[in-house]
């Protein structure tokens, strides 16, 4: 880890430990925006780790941002920190300035397309994006869209645009963890800024899947820590349940999945810094998703009935895992995409590709 990565990791962990309490998450689930937490993150330079220092960011790389995103997942921080980080990076890719305040990204589904059309000297955005994270809570939405007359590039002739959230018609919805997932309809919404970028048309789904995989890796760490702690504290038959081999082996299995999801996610961020994240992101989303289902199952089994109550905090991690594994593309979708690429390249390329740097 770089010095910056370590600094960001220490800062964000301290801040989450202090501010992301059970009460805060519960109030966010009732729709209260955690303003104090957001301001602390912004003042700590944690919302824009990839933006250059001259533009008010931390001037880091994805490998540094990884620690922040993972911590946000581990602590179930109820705000669009991962989305803001991706949004800031997308704006940077198009050479656009990054505004203050929380940001989100759209469209998150591989098949959704938004379109920018010229209007005088500016651009207007058309189309609808479903289940946009924190769509109604943010100040701005950063979109990757097809641009009228944009010159196709290696990335696909896309444009990045910054649109005020107020310019979209919002239909509110939420995921299993009661995080806002709102549909935004852009019917000629004016872009505050827009510029071409060398990004694939599904760049939001791709980088969204990357950050979700790291958030899942963090939530899985939380499951393991909570489960081990509970197994050493809870007594039945006169001894801690963690003394029983059946429990020990399930937690060992969980530890393996946590480790695998963690390294897969980190690998995706490192690959993003090298400019070739597509296959590692697919693998990370698949691996974290597999671990999510199994890990949530083990954690709940170990916790018994108390873990099934709203009063206990286990569900802050498990409900997020159940939603996050499906957001920005499910395991099956990413596995198919990865499998098609592997098959098209053929068996003899598999090992050389796996070991390529």
């Amino acid at each position: 880890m770089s010095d910056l990565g370590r600094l960001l990791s220490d800062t964000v962990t301290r801040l989450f430990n202090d501010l992301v309490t059970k009460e805060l998450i519960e109030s966010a689930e009732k729709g209260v925006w955690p303003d104090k937490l957001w301001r602390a993150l912004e003042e700590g330079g944690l919302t824009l780790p990839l933006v250059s220092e001259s533009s008010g960011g931390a001037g880091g790389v994805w490998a540094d941002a990884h620690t922040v995103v993972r911590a946000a997942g581990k602590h179930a921080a109820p705000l669009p920190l991962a989305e803001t980080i991706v949004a800031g990076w997308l704006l940077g890719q198009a050479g656009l300035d990054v505004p203050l305040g929380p940001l989100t990204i759209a469209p998150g589904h591989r098949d959704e397309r938004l379109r920018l059309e010229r209007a005088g000297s500016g651009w207007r955005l058309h189309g609808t994006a479903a289940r946009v994270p924190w769509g109604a809570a943010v100040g701005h939405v950063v979109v990757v869209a097809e641009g009228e007359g944009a010159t196709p590039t290696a990335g696909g002739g896309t444009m990045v645009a910054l649109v005020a959230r107020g310019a979209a018609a919002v239909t509110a919805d939420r995921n299993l963890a009661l995080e806002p997932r709102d549909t935004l309809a852009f019917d000629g919404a004016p872009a505050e800024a827009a510029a071409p970028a060398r990004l694939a048309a599904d760049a939001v789904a791709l980088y969204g899947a990357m950050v979700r995989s790291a958030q899942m890796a963090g939530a899985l760490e939380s499951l393991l820590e909570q489960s081990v702690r509970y197994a050493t504290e809870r007594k039945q038959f006169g001894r801690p349940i963690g003394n029983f081999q059946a429990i020990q082996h399930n937690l060992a299995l969980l530890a393996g999945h946590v480790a695998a999801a963690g390294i897969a996610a980190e690998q995706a961020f490192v690959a993003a810094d090298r400019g070739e994240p597509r296959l590692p992101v697919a693998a990370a989303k698949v691996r974290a998703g597999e671990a999510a289902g199994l890990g949530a199952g083990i954690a709940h089994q170990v916790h018994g009935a108390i873990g099934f109550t709203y009063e206990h905090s286990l569900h802050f991690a498990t409900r997020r895992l159940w939603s996050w594994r499906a957001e920005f593309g499910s395991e099956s979708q990413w596995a198919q995409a990865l499998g098609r690429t592997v098959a098209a390249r053929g068996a003899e390329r598999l090992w050389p590709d796996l070991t390529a740097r």
Partner: protein
Amino acid sequence: MSVFHFELRDLPPEAEAFRDEVRAFLRETMGTRAPVRRARSWGGFDPEFSKRLGARGWIGLTWPKRYGGQERSFLERYVLLEELLAAGAPAGAHWVAERQSGPLLLRFGTEAQRERFLPAIVRGESYFAIGMSEPDSGSDLASIRTRAMRKDGGYVVNGTKVWTSNAHRSQHAIALFRTAVVPDKKHEGLSQFLVDLRSPGVTIRPIIDLAGSHHFNEVVFQDVFVPEDMRVGGEGDGWKQVTTELAFERSGPERYLSSIALILALIDHVGADPDPRAAEVVGRLATQLMTLRQMSLSVAGMLQAGQNPNLEAAVVKDVGTTFEQSVPEVVHALMDLEPTIDSGSDLQQTLGYLVQRAPSFSLRGGTREVLRGIIARGLGLR
């Protein structure tokens, strides 16, 4: 408790340059070997291949030059191993000698033992077996009963070892014997020995595996004399030495690549434009390979840095063997395909071989249950 930490590792440039050399060698020596033969991997016993590898200087790559080694890094050895395994090279003859016996002698052996045994291992001419398990001692290894009693400048050994792979075609074994019975302290009084398998009193009988192959043996010791200078390490230090040896062999690429020949045959079989179900299966298999390689490499990096990643290594072996064991199951679930021995497609034959082999993946070198116990201890549960 601590969540195990796996740090991502990059291989150094010299290791990547070495990879190209190894690939060129394998293209030349392996040719168009059928998938089902590649599936044997380090189960394949081929002295000619071992000698060719030895002639390149690729056995004992990290060992001191004075014993014939190359003094190259553990990460270069890692690259060599993963390339051999990915290609399904028949590395079985020298496998144990290079992976366990030689390193054991380097750590605990005498100078005379190193000078005598290591150069022949390096040449690919000297093969070793491991004498640990006994008829009544499997996972509970410390309960072994084969006795080595002191006598006239050495020891006299009586007892029986089982599951001794390749004893019938190896010159030596490194065996764990009981040199003292310490009441209620079964981990004490154990010692390791270098045994010449042609010694009088050694009887080697085949144990045929479920598929009809002979690699296991029962090795009976009846008043076998082992000279004192063939003891490895201190008398009574056997348990400490053996657990070190087992820890070092847990996290290598052989713990997740055992079914790669089947994965490659499957990709060939489904073709360049697979249906969505087949694409998903291939994608999930590729995901596990990518992830396990990073985990295994991470432990290799810790070993190279002189750290002690025993717990992480146990995690890699548990996750890795579970994966390699699952591959035949995944192929069965995907397609209407009968596993075969003598007929059928490459995929059918490879499936036929590996489905019969897979139960051993989570047994050899320490069972899944033993590993999960080690991991649970690392989590603070034991």
